């Protein structure tokens, strides 16, 4: 494994989490927006990242995309579950 793997993933996790802190107060997501985020992340993975994974395997850079994608899907789902619905019923 690349010796820079865990330092990179660790630092990116920290920066992503710091970036997400101000969004904790965000309202319930629109279903269409949630679907967009949940669909676009794996679709991009298949089109843009997976071909490289087949050639070079999982490395620190493809793992960075996977980490970001995992956070996007997780936060989108948690937002739907945890945040109160808006007056428009979204």
């Amino acid at each position, binding site marked *: 494994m690349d010796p820079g793997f865990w330092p990179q993933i660790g*630092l990116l996790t920290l920066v992503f989490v710091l970036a997400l802190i101000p969004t904790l107060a965000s309202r319930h997501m629109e279903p269409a927006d949630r679907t967009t985020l949940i669909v676009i992340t794996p679709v991009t993975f298949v089109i843009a990242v997976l071909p490289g994974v087949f050639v070079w395997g999982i490395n620190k850079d493809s793992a960075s995309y996977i980490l970001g994608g995992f956070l996007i899907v997780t*936060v989108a789902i948690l937002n739907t579950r945890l945040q109160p619905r808006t007056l428009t019923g979204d």
Partner: protein
Amino acid sequence: MDATCMRRTAGQLVSSLWGWVLERGILYALLETPVLAIMGGIFYRVVPYRYALITILLAFMALPFWVSYRRQVSMNRDEPVHHLHRYALYSLLPGAMFTVARIPTHFLWGLIYWHPWYDFGAELTGAPLGQYSSLFPGALLNALQGWSIAMGFYVLFRRHSLINAVLYIGIYDSSLYSYVFPTYSRVGLQSPPLWHAVDVWAHVAMAFTAWVMPVFHSRAWPRFAGVARAAAVALMAAIVLTPTGFAFWRATTWQFPTDESIDQATFNRPGLMAVKDGPSLQAVDLDARYKFTLRFGPRGFNNYFRQARDLDAAPVRVTGTLSHDGRIIAWCSTYVERLESPNRVTAPQQFWPVFRRTQFTDIPVQCMGPASGAADLGAGSEVTVQWSAQMTLIGDRERQTREFFGRDPTQLSAGRP
């Protein structure tokens, strides 16, 4: 769930998807062509970038027709075509903030945000890297890409909330950036964790700006009047122009002089060209054939943004003589159009093996003389190699025509075969 219900659900799903394609999907695809062009043209190299750019021209020609059509038929006031002019204006700032946020990192850690601009500009115009002629078109293309990403956010999402901006621009785009740049573009460069963190920071700054712009437009702007509006417009214009202005300023005052001094230091390395293997007698028939080897190197250096490069030389012309007991026994020459170089490698994974292999490059030199000259030669015979090598040294930015000389008394390494 019975078959009728399933058919109805499937029908609703298809109808909903088709509605999304018409309202947002096609518009998004048209507006994202600058990003798709760079992905296909520079990163994945599906087609040359200048041809990939044709898709942008076609998309931006199709855009007014599509917008006009959708404005006529759309009953949904949330559809992005009704707000496109505002989105286009909002999008100017986030793209610029992506770069402005990285200016402090240039002074803190020496990161240089404008170096990919040279790649973009060079791919489009064919101009050499590291020159204004590739920097300026690259700056324009970079601004277009930033604008396109922000437009993508406004078109793709119904609600331009902070969470959507951070997830889409701050995390999705930066994760993709963290993958494609080191994998397909950063040739000869290390991408340490700090580089990735700065990439995320810049995208998050872009995301916050994309979120702020509609809020600013709806809440603050109506309260501004006269001087306040003029000041706000001037501030926004300054932010938009700062990335390009800063890049040109630093390129002129720091990058070019730094690169020139690095090139000069590399050109003036001692022993850049030397005899590696002394002459050996290869064959004797009608003529006697000899060979010796010159070694060019060490070639590796780091340019102004710590990108590993090789000193190039092209073409290399070597002439010389072999003499024994004060008389010339053979005349030597060789010509090399271009040395193997990692500088032309476009895939980061292929760069380092070539770079390591070419730290020193051997140039075999063939010599030929009368067979009688080799009659009394054997292994260990004293011979003198006199050579000169003319070449154009090619650094990162500079070129210099040089001639190296050598006169090396040595021993023949092999006798008559």
